[in-house]
């Protein structure tokens, strides 16, 4: 049985017919002019109706995604007048907010540098975007590669808008981070002689992405989580931060946590706070599906912004070129770029390629949207979705039978469940929201503009410029998680003790909202998305 209905199979025949030709075909890379034009025509960031200027806060007047502006223009969940700031429940040196790869790394390093650490997270420890990463981690560890080349690829991929000191830190530390992970016992893919296996990602001029099968993020996350437990670092689960607390000098001095199950709030005083709350996929910018985990709701951006930290590049969202478009049950789920990195091609309804598959993600996604929307060369599913083919059979043809099974067992397995054999049949794909390129602006030590507040990972901005390359986020969360963890521990040791605790920044923000004529609607941060059906919600009368 094939998982594809007949009308789609006709196009698969055409794809099979062009395979031999496509194996020889070389599609040149786009020129800078062609790139600019393609993005402007087809990238969702350029849809005028998708964004609007935010009316309050440090980035007042700048355009960002509507869905994010809705939250930034929201009132806080807490009435500052009802919170008793005298009653401090916990007192620590470093509070880490977020239990993904960035947060756990920061907690380990802060602990290593002598700090008393508490890590609090919204779901279970490790329920995060990190655990979902498939492709792997970019680092220039090969003899034919160098940090210099990694720098060049990263800044070009970011459209030259990245903060240079951050790119410098990223590529410099990247091989050190791979060694660190290896020493913690992460099981990297290796050649028989022990050398690390590396793959291409779009926009990387060398094979540079180190993988652990197609479960790289799972492997890093479970190893780091295990180490956190071994080090007896304290963890609170299902306890999201709903507001930061400052002191009377405007320095960050702690946070208010919500116990999601009992509804009780607790106050943690900390000499330094590290935000590592990840991305925004669950806001569904431009109504796109997302690859992100359930908790990716921009909380860190909202609470940091309200406390006065400026955001960078929040008008640049990454849509991953290859989200699943069939079967329906998998809609929007990630189909890893490593498939293209190992030779899979993008093919339209006629069996033709239309882009060099190793262009950066912003361009590749735009090209798919152009193929489907403007050129009407997409493949339509019975439910009305459209997409293009990803010809996965080429991986075994190029790399020898068994390569797909060896490197992409997860993909093979998941599609087999729906009657699709990716050794022979292609996968239908369409872009899906994947990554928040920008975030809270940081420096090379992970410091934000607020004293005592650090940020690391997807919540931070500047490292990736306007578009991130494949493999560059995992390296980002470990490089800056390590830097922020160390810097926060040192800061906590040296900084003068916090003054009296205050939520005046929330009061000020509320006043600003009122003055801008913004009524009190939905409160933020969002914490959890609501996928219940509207008919149920309407009848929650109480």
């Amino acid at each position: 049985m094939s998982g594809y209905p007949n009308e789609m199979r006709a196009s698969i025949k055409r794809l099979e017919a062009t395979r031999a030709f496509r194996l020889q075909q070389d599609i040149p890379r786009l020129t800078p002019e062609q790139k600019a034009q393609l993005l402007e025509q087809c990238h969702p960031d350029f849809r005028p109706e998708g964004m609007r200027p935010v009316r309050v806060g440090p980035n007042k007047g700048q355009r960002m995604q509507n869905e994010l502006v809705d939250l930034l223009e929201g009132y806080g969940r807490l009435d500052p007048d009802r919170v008793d700031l005298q009653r401090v429940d916990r007192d620590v040196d470093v509070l880490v907010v977020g239990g993904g790869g960035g947060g756990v790394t920061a907690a380990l390093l802060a602990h290593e540098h002598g700090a008393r650490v508490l890590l609090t997270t919204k779901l279970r420890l490790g329920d995060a975007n990190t655990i979902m990463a498939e492709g792997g981690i970019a680092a220039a560890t090969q003899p034919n590669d160098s940090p210099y080349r990694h720098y060049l690829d990263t800044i070009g991929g970011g459209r030259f808008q990245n903060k240079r000191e951050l790119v410098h830190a990223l590529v410099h530390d990247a091989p050190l981070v791979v060694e660190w992970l290896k020493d913690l016992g992460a099981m990297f893919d290796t050649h028989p002689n022990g050398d690390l296996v590396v793959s291409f990602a779009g926009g990387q001029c060398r094979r540079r992405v180190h993988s652990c099968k197609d479960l790289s993020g799972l492997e890093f996350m479970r190893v780091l989580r295990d180490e956190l437990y071994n080090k007896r670092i304290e963890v609170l689960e299902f306890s999201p931060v709903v507001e930061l607390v400052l002191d009377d000098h405007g320095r960050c001095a702690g946070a208010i946590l919500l116990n999601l199950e009992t509804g009780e709030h607790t106050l943690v005083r900390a000499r330094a706070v590290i935000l590592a709350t990840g991305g925004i996929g669950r806001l569904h910018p431009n109504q796109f599906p997302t690859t992100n985990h359930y908790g990716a709701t921009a909380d860190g951006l909202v609470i940091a912004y309200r406390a006065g930290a400026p955001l960078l590049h929040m008008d640049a969202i990454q849509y991953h070129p290859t989200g699943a478009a069939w079967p329906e049950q998998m809609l929007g789920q990630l189909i890893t770029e490593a498939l293209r990195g190992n030779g899979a091609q993008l093919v339209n309804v006629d069996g033709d390629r239309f882009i060099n598959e190793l262009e950066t993600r912003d361009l590749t996604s735009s090209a798919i949207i152009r193929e489907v929307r403007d050129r009407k060369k997409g493949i339509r599913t019975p439910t009305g979705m459209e997409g293009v083919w990803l010809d996965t059979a080429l991986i075994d043809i190029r790399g020898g039978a068994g390569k797909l099974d060896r490197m992409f067992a997860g993909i093979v397995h998941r599609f087999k469940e729906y009657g699709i054999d990716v050794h022979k049949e292609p996968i239908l794909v369409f872009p899906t929201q994947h990554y928040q390129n920008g975030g809270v602006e940081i420096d090379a030590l992970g410091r934000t503009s607020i004293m005592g507040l650090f940020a690391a990972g997807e919540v931070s901005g500047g490292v990736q410029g306007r578009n991130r390359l494949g493999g560059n986020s995992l390296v980002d969360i470990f490089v800056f998680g390590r830097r922020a963890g160390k810097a926060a521990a040192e800061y906590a040791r040296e900084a003068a003790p916090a003054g009296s605790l205050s939520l005046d920044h929330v009061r000020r923000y509320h006043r600003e909202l009122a003055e801008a004529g913004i009524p009190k609607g939905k409160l933020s941060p969002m914490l959890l998305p609501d996928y219940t059906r509207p008919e149920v919600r309407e009848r929650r009368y109480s």
Partner: protein
Amino acid sequence: MAETLIPIYIMGKRYEVPEGLTIMKALEWAGYQLIRGCGCRGGFCGACATVYRVPGDYRLKVGLACQTPIVPDMYLTELPFFPANKALYDLDQVGDRVDTLLELYPEVARCLGCNTCTKVCPQKLKPIDYIAAALRGDFPRAADLSFDCIMCGLCAARCPGELVPYNVALFVRRYYSKLIRIKPQHLKDRVAEITGGQHDQALADIAAMDEEALKKIYVERDFEKL
């Protein structure tokens, strides 16, 4: 297209939900805003272990809520949490592999060979085999056999020997990756170059370049062949 509704029982309560949904989406459709039991929504994190029964079958079935389609009249509940035993250790201090394993997890010797774990594993792993390999000291094989484990807890929930196979496997993989596998020379070399400052000049130069010059070398850079 009119949706066909089918009955399911969530923690004993009857709901009618559209055919074809996963258990997770059916819970949401019915009106549950999930707090526990929902993480990645893509089969990676193991947060959504679910147990259920279907009519006419005495057997307890298990699956991941985000991956398992609903069937009519299924009786289901998610497992919000499983209290698992995890040994604490320092990989820089451990001794011989099997001795350490038995010291940390003496209960592995109590594996009854009943194979219940294999029947419940949503990743189609055979914990019985990786446990046996670990006990034999064949850590490379145990590491390989257990690699796809998402630590969902189902095998431990059902194990009559009271093992926590996934925590055993995690220890074994870390031990193997850190202490049995060699560290590649190319990695050691690159790390030495970086800590020795050999790349600092090249990075300082590129960081100081004006944007036009940077754009030029970016466009002209050479690509390794696919």
